[in-house]
């Protein structure tokens, strides 16, 4: 510790900027990891907590995916002897139309009697929360809001509030105010209670409920209760504890989680090189100091220990800063993810607070620390090997020994072979891809020095051609310190490859989804209850479709009901529509099966058609039988075909509407796909429909172009987070270049001094440094673009096998690559500005001093 105080602290004080850069290198990796994981956890926890709060005293819940089920189920559930109480619930998300107030989450329960008030703990002792229960029931515009919401909006009992409903904007009368806490705390108080039968009307739910909350007779265990209910209701419905219901969301957030973990690992890896670089240079610079120490009797262990302690301190600092900033960032990201999921899945959710999972934080801390220590290991070993005599001599410089290079290349080949073996053989996909991916990265990193030497040698003439003196100086500087250069290049290469990989995925996704939209999204108009196609709070009655069919400008209308059902513990989308009509109108890309036969069988209700991604993720093939839970029991149907379809990230399953109505007892409609008569302009059709139906029902008519724009927006949102991670990766890389150049300049202060002493102008010195940055940039870009090509293949593999089951075509993102070249060169140049200036501004006398 004494050594630390005497030697390290002064060094750190002298090299504040470099120390800061090193700490930042650790911190950025930790930030991504902490921010993404915490955001995911918070969203999940938010869902969980919301589920808890709006669950009341339920021990079990009956659901049918997210689609609801016929009312009759309630009486059957109530008749189960083990069940004490079974209460129906409908959930909806209703806009208030008020700026900044967001949506009100509507929990519709049975308000007959006062059970709901008691179960949800809404009563507040003597004061009645509902002015008059009979009036509340008798008037379907009755609503109960939280005290918080009332206070925020100056609402009192008897006030009117407007909500977006199936019947358009509708005034509701506040006839009760909940006491704070419990349920009222969910959704930040943006919650209202309605009578369930009124809600059925207002939100177009027909005679269905979303779920039934059960409590069991005293002495009946959860398992007994579940078994009894399942026996009574058949196994087409989900009977789960409220806690496990939240798990369904895990598969959704998992998608974010996988990407985040990969990317934060990447960031840490980049950080590793920055730290390595700093330590390697620090050791080189302090060689004389270490030599003195050694000659004064310090053991090798002490020297090594000193360096490792330094790395531990840096690691701790970086991790701590990373965790703090990561948590700060998590809030914004959690809101982003939450909104994304809410929008896409129509789930109301508020992630108000972030949940710092101790496990995540310790993992992040450990990762930061370990990265730092690993990065310092080799330099520490080098420091320990310093020979006191030679260290005291002036002017040493590093170079790779031949044996070291050979070992490196051998290692690279080993990793490359592993990657190859796993690519073609491999076993379980996740493991195979991860191993391969890591091996490729390891091989690339190990090969970097060799490539750097090669490329710089080739580049030297080019650089000299541009600026003879400066170019040569720059190239020589790069070659003179191969380790320093390689570490920087490795960091930059990794981040460029990350951009190429992720960018390639984005490109491929847009391309595939555009193809799909061209084939499948061809109706002229879409009629839905919301601007968001995924809205699930509102549904149309089937008769609306007939009214549109009767319009003289309408050629054909397809009624589409989409819902999600549990399928191997994930929620997959069921798309129920008129298959015969669909087969005539849409021409999806067929992956397996015969197009005519599959639609014929599906239209007859004898089979289903699967989206490619569903088949992929669940390993289903043509002719397999799928089991689809429905309120009427489990439907066992053969797979008649597999088509390319991106309706849902978790996968979609197409069936005929009659089959759905029969088994779900639900003929409501989420969206109508409308084909207009030839020659009718979409805008005219839209006006026509709105004129006839607009005032009667909540109705949004979107043109084909608008729907495409919406889908594109969803994908944009999806990639929004990815872009942010790319940004951080690039930031880490920029830090890497700045760090490397700062180090390089400090390292060569005397040399630069000599240069100026023998007549080098400032401009010339500056340009030499810029050229050096350009050299690093160019080499990194070359290597990064190449590594990116391989990384992309792995990403596509992960997406196909692990995340979304989507088969994306491999296309190298040349556009992005072309953009990266000037961008990275500019970044390299920009990061050279500061160090370059500091080099020419430095005192010549000091630079030439001997000490």
């Amino acid at each position: 510790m004494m050594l630390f105080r005497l030697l390290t602290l002064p060094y750190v004080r002298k090299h504040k900027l470099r120390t800061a850069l090193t700490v930042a290198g650790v911190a950025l990796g930790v930030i991504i990891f902490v921010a993404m994981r915490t955001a995911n956890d918070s969203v999940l926890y938010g869902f969980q907590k919301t589920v808890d709060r709006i669950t009341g005293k339920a021990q079990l819940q009956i659901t049918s995916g997210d689609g609801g089920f016929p009312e009759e189920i309630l009486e059957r559930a109530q008749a189960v002897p083990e069940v004490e109480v079974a209460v129906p619930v409908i959930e909806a998300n209703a806009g208030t139309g008020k700026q900044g107030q967001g949506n009100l989450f509507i929990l519709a329960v049975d308000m007959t009697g006062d059970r709901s008030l008691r179960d949800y703990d809404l009563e507040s002792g003597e004061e009645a929360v509902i002015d008059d229960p009979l009036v509340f029931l008798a008037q379907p515009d009755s609503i109960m809001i939280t005290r918080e919401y009332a206070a925020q909006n100056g609402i009192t009992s008897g006030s009117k509030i407007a909500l977006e409903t199936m019947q358009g904007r509708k005034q509701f009368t506040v006839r009760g105010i909940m006491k704070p806490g419990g349920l009222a705390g969910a959704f930040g108080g943006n919650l209202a209670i309605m009578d369930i039968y009124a809600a059925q009307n207002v939100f177009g739910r027909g005679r269905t409920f979303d779920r039934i909350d059960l409590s069991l007779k005293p002495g009946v265990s959860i398992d007994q209760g579940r078994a009894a209910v399942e026996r009574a209701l058949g196994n087409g419905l989900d009977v789960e504890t409220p806690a496990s219901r939240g798990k369904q969301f895990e598969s959704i957030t998992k998608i974010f989680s996988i990407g985040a973990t990969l990317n934060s690992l990447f960031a840490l890896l980049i950080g590793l090189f920055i730290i390595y670089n700093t330590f390697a240079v620090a050791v080189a610079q302090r060689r004389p100091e270490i030599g003195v120490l050694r000659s004064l009797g310090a053991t090798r262990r002490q020297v090594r220990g000193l360096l490792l302690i330094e790395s531990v301190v840096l690691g701790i600092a970086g991790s701590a800063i990373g965790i703090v900033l990561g948590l700060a960032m998590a809030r914004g990201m959690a809101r982003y993810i939450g909104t994304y999921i809410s929008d896409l899945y129509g789930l109301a959710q508020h992630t108000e607070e972030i949940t710092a999972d101790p496990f995540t934080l310790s993992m992040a801390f450990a990762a930061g620390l370990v990265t730092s220590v690993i990065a310092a290991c080799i330099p520490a070993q080098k420091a320990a090997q310093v020979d006191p005599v030679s260290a005291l001599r002036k002017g040493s410089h590093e170079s790779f020994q031949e044996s070291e290079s050979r070992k490196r290349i051998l290692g690279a080949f080993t990793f490359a072979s592993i990657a190859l073996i796993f690519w073609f053989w491999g076993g379980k996909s996740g493991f195979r891809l991860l191993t391969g991916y890591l091996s490729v990265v390891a091989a690339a990193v190990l090969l970097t020095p060799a490539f750097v030497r090669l490329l710089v040698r080739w580049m030297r003439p080019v650089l000299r051609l541009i600026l003879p003196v400066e170019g040569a100086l720059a190239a020589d500087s790069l070659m003179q310190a191969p380790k320093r250069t390689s570490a920087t290049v490795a960091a930059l290469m990794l981040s460029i490859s990350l951009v190429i990989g992720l960018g390639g995925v984005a490109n491929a996704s847009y391309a595939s989804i555009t193809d799909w939209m061209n084939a499948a999204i061809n109706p002229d108009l879409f009629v839905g209850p919301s601007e968001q196609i995924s809205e699930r709070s509102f549904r149309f009655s089937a008769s609306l479709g007939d009214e549109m069919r009767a319009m003289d400008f309408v050629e054909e209308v397809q009624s589409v009901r989409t819902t999600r059902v549990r399928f191997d513990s994930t929620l997959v989308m069921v798309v129920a529509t008129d298959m015969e009509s669909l087969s005539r109108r849409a021409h999806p890309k067929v992956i397996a099966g015969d197009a005519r036969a599959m639609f014929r069988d599906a239209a007859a209700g004898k089979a289903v058609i699967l989206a490619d991604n569903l088949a992929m993720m669940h390993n289903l093939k043509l002719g397999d039988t799928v089991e689809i839970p429905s309120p009427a029991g489990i439907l066992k149907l053969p797979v008649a075909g597999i088509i390319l379809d991106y309706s849902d990230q978790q996968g979609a399953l197409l069936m005929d509407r009659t089959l759905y109505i029969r088994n779900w007892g639900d003929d409501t409609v989420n969206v109508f796909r409308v084909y207009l008569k030839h020659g009718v302009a979409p805008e005219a059709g839209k006006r026509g429909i709105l004129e006839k139906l607009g005032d009667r029902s909540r109705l949004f008519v979107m043109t084909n172009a608008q729907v495409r724009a919406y889908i594109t927006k969803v994908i944009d949102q999806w990639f929004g987070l990815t872009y942010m991670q790319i940004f951080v990766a690039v930031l880490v890389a920029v830090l890497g270049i700045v760090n490397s150049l700062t180090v390089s300049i400090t390292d060569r202060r005397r040399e630069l001094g000599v240069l100026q002493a023998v007549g080098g102008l400032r401009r010339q010195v500056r340009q030499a440094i810029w050229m050096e940055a350009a050299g690093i940039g160019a080499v990194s870009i070359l290597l990064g673009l190449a590594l990116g090509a391989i990384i992309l293949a792995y990403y596509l593999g992960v997406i196909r096998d692990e995340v979304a089951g989507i088969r994306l075509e491999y296309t190298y993102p040349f556009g992005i690559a072309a953009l990266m070249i000037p961008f990275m060169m500019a970044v390299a140049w920009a990061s050279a500005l500061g160090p370059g200036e500091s080099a020419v501004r430095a005192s010549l006398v000091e630079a030439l001093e001997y000490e």
Partner: protein
Amino acid sequence: MSRAWLGLILSAATGFAQDARQIMQQAQDRAKSASQRYEGTLQVLDGKSKITEKRWTYQRTGAAGDSKAVLRFTAPAEVKGVALLVVNHPDRASDQWMWTPSLQRERRIAFQDRSTRFFGTDFSFEDLEERDVSQFDYQLADEEQLGGAAVWKVISRPKKTKSSQYSHAHLWVDKQRFVIVKIESFKDARLIRRIVYRDFRQVQGIWTPFVVEVEDTNRKGRTMLKTDKLEYNLPLKEENFTLQALRRES
């Protein structure tokens, strides 16, 4: 007997009952009528003696647990047309439906909800049903004076415990008129609800309470029902006591 307050009509008669069962049978017999109709005024007082008032008309056909009743609110305007159909069965709990005209649909009052409060009054839904004396076991507990009249104190226990929220009840029966003047209902040792019958008048030979006062011990207020325009044995059509009729008449 009628544990229910609605159809509770007991005629006065002299006689001596040796055991509780006979007393209760007597009371039920004396109150027996083929049908009934009245207009009720319901006053709910909360803890701060705020009063909300509602009016309804009541019609019943059949008796002694095998009856049907429709209760239709007439005032205030917000609740006008809301109706409750109670179909009593001699051997089991009643079926109950509520009709809300603004939604144009009925809702079943599930068994599990029979113990909940009837629209914010001190009554529970269970208190709306009639049960035959045969569904209870009786035990004579005491003979006392209540409000200047001699009464029997009878303890009743439902035979099928699962169909009632109460474990037992204390009933006070007027020795002169064979009418129940007070009921205290318990769940185990805890008093849940107290009903007091007052202002007895003879209508068509049946002693009828014109004021019923109910107290739910879980809340502070109480509920008063005042009866008006009461008639017995009028010709009421059976088909008026169905869900279809509720729908039709709203």
